[in-house]
């Protein structure tokens, strides 16, 4: 036994140092009035940073954008991933190659995903944004320039980049259902829909929760794809919480308020994913 602890110890110590320490430090700085290069240094200010945030309209806009963005991206990517996985659980010819193709976006740099979609949707050079829209007579529509359409665009780009993940999760989930279940259902004379409803779906609960957890974490952290495509604009139409944090912390150098945003993000994610993790690790 003792030897196993010895093997485990170095990683645990380093992780504690790298993760636990900085997390406490984050909470600490979120209660400080602290601008970088401020000659007076950090001063304790209690809940001031949080109060300031909750009163600021920018925070409310960013929170709303984050919630809309995350909910849409998570739900759409889960539905698409499930549909694709069901499609690929039938016997298609050339399945292996097609699966490799479908998985590709998930290993691409998100920054490249963002740039690629910016290139395609651009009203200057884009195949869709400049060419196809003009063909169908919508030449004066600017996909990344209109507030609503810009939000839709970044959601679609994110869905394109992340659906492979949910696809893989559901594919693995479907493969794990014992064929015996289907065989006995068939012997009992169950219909296609009945089999789907009472065998396939209930057996996908765990994959669904895993997909929900991972995608929610992803979506609430979204920065790269949006940053490349719209920089949070036009106006604040695609301005998410991490982006507000970046602007406050590394543009205005208000480290206290930025830490408070970090804490809020952390608490939101913990309160969403902890109960879900509880369910699957039972």
């Amino acid at each position, binding site marked *: 036994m003792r*030897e*196993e*602890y*010895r*093997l*485990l110890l170095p*990683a645990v110590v*380093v*992780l504690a140092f*790298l*993760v636990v320490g*900085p*997390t406490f*430090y*984050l909470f600490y700085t979120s209660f400080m009035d602290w601008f970088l290069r401020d000659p007076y240094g950090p001063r304790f200010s209690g809940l001031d940073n949080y109060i300031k945030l909750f009163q600021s309209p920018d925070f409310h806009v960013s929170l709303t954008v984050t919630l809309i963005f995350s909910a849409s991206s998570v739900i759409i990517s889960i539905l698409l991933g499930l549909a*694709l996985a069901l*499609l690929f659980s039938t016997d*298609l*010819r050339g399945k292996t190659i*097609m699966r*490799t193709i479908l*998985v*590709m*976006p998930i*290993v*691409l*740099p998100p*920054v*490249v995903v963002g*740039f*690629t979609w*910016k*290139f*395609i949707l651009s009203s200057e*050079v884009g*195949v869709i944004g400049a060419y196809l829209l*003009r063909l169908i007579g919508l030449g004066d529509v600017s996909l990344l320039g209109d507030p609503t359409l810009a939000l839709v665009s970044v959601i679609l780009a994110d869905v*394109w980049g992340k659906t492979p993940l949910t696809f*893989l*999760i559901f594919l*693995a989930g479907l493969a794990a259902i014992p064929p015996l279940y289907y065989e006995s259902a*068939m012997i009992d004379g169950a219909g296609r829909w009945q089999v789907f409803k009472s065998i396939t779906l209930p057996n996908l609960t765990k994959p669904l929760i*895993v997909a929900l957890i*991972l995608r929610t*974490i992803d979506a*609430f*952290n979204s*920065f790269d794809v949006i*940053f*490349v495509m719209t920089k949070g604009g036009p106006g604040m139409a695609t301005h998410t*919480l*991490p982006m507000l944090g*970046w602007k406050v*912390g590394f543009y205005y150098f208000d480290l206290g308020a*930025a830490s408070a945003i*970090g804490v809020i993000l*952390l608490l939101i*994610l*913990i309160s969403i994913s902890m109960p879900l993790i509880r369910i699957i*690790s039972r």
Partner: protein
Amino acid sequence: MKTPIHIQIILYLLAIIACGLIVFPIWWIIVASFKTMHQVFQIPPQIIFDPTFDNYRRLFFGGQLINSLFNSLSVSAITVTTSLILSIPAAYSLSTLKNRVGRNVGFWVLSIRMAPAFAVIIPYFIIMYFLRLIDTIWAVAITYLTFAIPFQTWLLKVTLEELPKELEEAALIDGATKTIALFRIILPNAAPMIAATSILTFVLAWNEFLMAFILTSRDARTVPVLITALSGTHRLDWPIMAAISTISMIPAFIFITFVQRYLIKGLTMGAIK
């Protein structure tokens, strides 16, 4: 259940459309990297055109790409090696420790995955600022360890659990200690798994943007940071950007076939086998 032929055809078409939607944007950006600025602006877009290698020539002779490529490679390599040294023993230990301590430590390692990158980056920025490490590859690599160590430890733990127990037991019966069993028996047998998880970690580090963006300004910029820096300029040089994007996709292309079997385990941290 036999699927009727017309439904099979429809399903097949759907699968091909889905592949098309994935392939087209990637193909289109690669194509654009062989165009001139003038060709990029042509409407309707040109599919057949006179390709130019000018963008790549400009990138590799002069320009900041070489420096950024070097930074990205170093940061990813340092991150992978350091986290491997710590992860292998920890993963082996967790894969055999089936008591409370093992489960709790395992859960803690897994839960670090939930930490939002933005919450991690602020304390790291302040620490690196006072250590005068801002804009060095060390600042970036150290910060990357916060996700690399949990990722590799958990992934290796799950894969090591798949090795036949007899291997280890035989070594232990022969009087080897756990540490010796790890080096003599487990490591050689798990080499392909270790290679696959290392590649995945490499790709994660290679692709990461937010942390590198905040911790670097000029000298230590990684490729993703360079891409956004250039995409923010007033008059966007689309073909050059397309060329950098194409280059930065190379690790993904090389590794996707090799590690596909591990991809699902890696990305879900082994929650699904």
